[in-house]
């Protein structure tokens, strides 16, 4: 009756099993999840409270002016120069990242052989793993000198060079996410197109890209959000001129590098300049949050309907 012995043993063990960890571990996991959620709320709370102190002291007409001179005897806190710097670097980065990233994604997902894709994709993703300070250094010490030979009027610190390098940094993000979206288009749908005599290129542009558009769009929006929040490259290579200009050969400051400059010791706690950091941080946060919400909305609204 060996079988019965085993059954009895198993039944005995089951009855005496302690269920402590089955109950305790989910609680532990919940606590861990709450830590990140609570931290987010904490950050938002601090931002809002201190940003409010800034807006209580500075009239809105000054906030939306082009004069940013936080340390002068007669200080002015116009945000437009910072917005301008951020938007210009972001636009330049997107001009680089979207076409290159998309083209790479199309090649990898539609034309490359399996073997080549397996080789190329990890190499592309190495780009994403390089620390941003290396990119910043690269922009300042390699890209800017090269650009100066082409554009003699280029200032040593300028918006063009970090914009371009930021674009290069973001390429893998656009390429990788768009490639995933295009790969997810069922091959039977592509067969439908090639079965009607479409070439591979026609199939790619008329069927695969429209079918993958939600993933592609959200990859682009996430890339914009990344560019807006990028700090190190612009801090190093675009300098800290608080100018309001559209000339990308000049030095400008972005919202992120403004925060870097001021947290490096210039602003005394409790001053308006100190609170301006929180105001800028809050605006930055609203920007990236909006972008992420747009990305989510696109994915939901135009999500795969097949």
């Amino acid at each position: 009756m060996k079988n019965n012995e085993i059954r009895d043993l198993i039944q005995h063990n089951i009855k005496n099993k302690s269920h402590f960890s089955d109950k305790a571990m989910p609680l532990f996991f919940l606590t861990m999840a709450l830590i990140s959620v609570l931290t987010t709320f904490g950050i938002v709370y601090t931002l809002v409270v201190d940003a409010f102190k800034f807006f209580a002291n500075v009239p809105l007409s000054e906030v939306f002016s082009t004069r940013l001179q936080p340390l002068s005897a007669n200080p002015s806190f116009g945000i437009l120069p910072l917005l301008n710097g951020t938007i210009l670097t972001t636009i330049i980065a997107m001009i680089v990242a979207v076409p290159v990233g998309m083209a790479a994604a199309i090649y990898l997902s539609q034309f490359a052989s399996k073997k080549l894709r397996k080789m190329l994709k990890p190499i592309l993703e190495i780009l994403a793993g390089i620390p941003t300070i290396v990119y910043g250094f690269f922009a300042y010490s390699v890209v800017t000198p090269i650009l100066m030979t082409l554009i003699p009027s280029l200032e040593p610190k300028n918006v063009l060079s970090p914009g371009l390098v930021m674009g290069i940094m973001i390429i893998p993000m656009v390429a990788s996410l768009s490639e995933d979206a295009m790969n997810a288009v069922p091959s039977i749908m592509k067969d439908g197109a090639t079965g009607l005599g479409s070439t591979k290129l026609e199939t790619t542009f008329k069927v695969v890209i429209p079918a993958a558009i939600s993933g592609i769009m959200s990859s682009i929006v996430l890339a914009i959000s990344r560019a807006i929040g990028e700090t190190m490259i612009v801090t190093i290579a675009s300098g800290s001129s608080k100018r309001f200009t559209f000339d990308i050969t000049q030095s400008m400051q972005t919202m992120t590098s403004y925060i870097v400059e001021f947290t490096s010791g210039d602003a005394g706690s409790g001053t308006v300049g100190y609170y301006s950091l929180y105001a800028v941080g809050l605006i930055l946060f609203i920007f990236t949050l909006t972008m992420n919400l747009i990305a989510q909305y696109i994915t939901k609204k135009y999500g795969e309907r097949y």
Partner: protein
Amino acid sequence: MKDNNMDIVYDVKGLNLWYGDNQALKDINMKIEKNKITAIIGPSGCGKSTFVKTLNRMIENVDGVRTSGEILYYGDDIFTNKLKVEELRTRVGMVFQKPNPFPKSIYENVVYGPKIHGIKDKKLLMKITEESLRGAALWDEVKDRLNENAYSLSGGQQQRLCIARSMAVNPEVILMDEPTSALDPVATMKIEELMEDLKKDYTVVIVTHNMQQAARISDKTAFFLNGELIEFDVTSKIFGTPKDQRTEDYITGRFG
């Protein structure tokens, strides 16, 4: 020598096909006649799907496929450059196992082929849409919602839309790879009714795992087993008095 017999659409001569080292088709010889429905039956893995996908070279989308032998389409070998693969595929349409409409409107699905091949005239495109949808017995059900997404249709309607889509480029042949295997009996019946009309204008080659379906709709039936063409004859003969013991065993349900 060009085959001048216009009643023979496909003349398959000594066709072999390998997936890597695996031989999936062995020395297939077969003539497919015009305006007939040719059914291809056989157990899973017998090569019937492979064979029909070879007829419009869709099989080449699979990695590591090699072929030998020739397939003459109205006398031209489809594996030579005499017939471009895109041209072949506009003359030979295909309907797949699962309905695969594009994630576009019903109208955009039908006009996809004509548009790709350079037809821009809106009136003509509308005419093509109506004719194709009528041809696929779908017009009455969708004429008021041509701009709705194709995925709002039921599975059976989607499959008829795919038939309409393939008809929109006015092919000579329509290949069907188990077109009803993902459909319910009612939708299957509708497609079978449609087949009878299709053969007036088209030559149809249909792969089916459903023997009753082959018996009901086809004029000629080919029985494939392990990559070989065992028997090919008039449907009533295949199901009535098969010559080969293996055909008889299969159609009487002794295996497969």
